[in-house]
């Protein structure tokens, strides 16, 4: 791996996510605390972008906005040309179901469902038949190396295995992008490497665009670009050449 320096802006054709003048603040104690201010940035197709920065720098807010689970106060966010800030709540939920795969720090699996049922869950929002849903869920689990754990409940799996189930759930609908919020934050080093390896493969071999928030420099090293945020502004951007 070698660091190539500050990135060039991507050309218009290969941009998947375009943020323009995005501002976001939160109300705390009767005051609006700005988190992002007129933030403009482009994320390429098939990119693996790591968002880094100290707590309160706005990286998780940025991730939430990109994923369509939060809305900006100002500005536009276009994903594959569609301005998601203009979508009503119900349409936004449909958009997320079709376009976004979520990977959370604490996996967020349904504890009462088996690994297979958890992975199958997003597919119930599609018109697929049960048999087809099962086949796809099993395929997704095999991609993360958990074919032998399909009937296990989350409580019967290790943290690393649970995160792999969460990755399978994120990719089972074949979304445009994956958003990961500290995906290795709750894992030991070996499990973290396994999870990051899977994410890297998904990016390289399946062309998934991944945006990942992390505090861990070793995790960020798996990304193609690393964006550092400071007080809601882009501090610097690093492009990496991965071997």
């Amino acid at each position: 791996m070698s660091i190539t320096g500050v990135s060039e802006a991507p050309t218009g054709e290969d941009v998947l996510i375009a943020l323009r003048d995005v501002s976001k603040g939160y109300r705390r104690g009767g005051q609006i605390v700005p988190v992002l201010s007129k933030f403009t940035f482009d994320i390429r197709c098939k990119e693996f972008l790591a968002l880094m920065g100290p707590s309160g720098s706005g990286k998780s807010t940025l991730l939430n906005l990109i994923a369509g689970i939060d809305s900006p106060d100002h500005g536009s966010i276009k994903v594959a040309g569609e301005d998601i800030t203009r979508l009503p709540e119900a349409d936004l939920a449909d958009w997320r179901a079709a376009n976004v795969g979520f990977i959370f720090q604490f996996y967020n699996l349904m504890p009462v469902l088996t690994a297979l049922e958890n992975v199958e869950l997003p597919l119930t929002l599609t018109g697929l038949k049960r048999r087809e849903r099962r086949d796809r869920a099993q395929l997704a689990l095999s991609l993360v190396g958990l074919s032998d754990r399909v009937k296990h409940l989350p409580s019967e799996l290790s943290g690393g295995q649970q995160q792999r189930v969460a990755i399978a759930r994120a990719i089972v609908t074949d979304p445009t992008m994956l958003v990961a919020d500290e995906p290795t934050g709750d894992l030991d080093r070996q499990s973290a490497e396994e999870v990051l390896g899977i994410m890297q493969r998904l990016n390289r071999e399946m062309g998934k665009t991944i945006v990942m928030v992390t505090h861990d420099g070793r995790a960020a090293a798996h990304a193609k670009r690393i964006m550092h945020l400071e007080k809601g502004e882009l501090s610097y951007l690093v492009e990496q050449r991965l071997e």
Partner: protein
Amino acid sequence: MSQWLKLVARNVLRHRLRTSLTLFGLVVAILAFGVLQTVVDTWYAGVNGAIPSRLLTRNAMSFALPLPQAYEKRISAVDGVRRVTYMNWFGGIYKDPKNFFPQFAIDAASYLDMHPEILVSDEVRRSFLRDRRGAIVGRKLANRYGFKPGNVIQLRGTIFPGNWEFVIAGIFDGRDPKTDTSHLYFRWDYLNEILRVRSKAQADQVGFFVVDVVSIDRVAEVSQAIDAVFRNSFAETLTETERSFQIGFVKQTEAMLISIRIVSFVVIFIILSVMANTMAMTARERLREYATLKAIGFSPGYVARLILGESVVIASIGGAIAIALTPPVAAHLAVLSATLFPALIVSASTVMLQALSALVVGALAAVFPMRRAAHVSIVNGLRAVG
């Protein structure tokens, strides 16, 4: 099984102790509600079971005051009257005052003819009419004290002084379960014969006349006609339908009945609070799961239906168990209450009310958790600690 149903079913079983305790509370509450409603219904059973063409004529001053037995002929002569019989409340004590059961002195043949709800065999009837000291006892009373035909029992008079001996001629049954079989009937002519010796002032008097009218349409007219016959006499009469009399009797205890009804609804309100608290706690713990579901594309409505489904399933199971337990518990209570109730029979309307209460409790308990889970932002929900 749909994904929604699967999630609901598994969430119900997720905290087994909590679900079991909630279920236990629900069962107790819905059961108590059903039993209390049944008690009130039974209190009104006499009203509902009254025969519409039967009138009761009593002393207009008070039903505690008697009427001359001689009124019988004059009542019989009123146009529209088919038959007349009469009776006296006896109010005797069997061994101990706690052994209360109703006793009536009746004009045996006419009374039995006019009360088809009292079922006696021909043999018992003949035996009863043959022996002046004869008495018939209801099945429930006979079972309670072990009375058998041929037994001699003694009652200590309270209204009518002295000890009174009766020979059990037989046992009667009720035409339907609501007919009270905790009574003892003995012969009025026996009572009167003794009173002529012991207490002349009480002789030749009756408590009530029971009047059978030729047609239900003429009930009002006949009752007015009877009372007109005795207007301005030394003992004026008040004639009313058996149903009106029963309502008047029940009205004396109305405050108690209203209290019982209120208590039964308070019990439901208490379990509603308990259930709402349980569901709120459950939903609060699962806020992150609901946020995750919403993040991956499920609607707020789906999340709300998960909570509603879980609440209604728990309430329905509790309601079903309570409904199944109500008849045996009511039957046991009827046995324990001795002769207070003829039988505590759970009506279809009570079962419906129990089922409705369970569903309403289940639905209302889910309202606030549903609103919260549906409206909480995904970002805030994901931050929630389960």
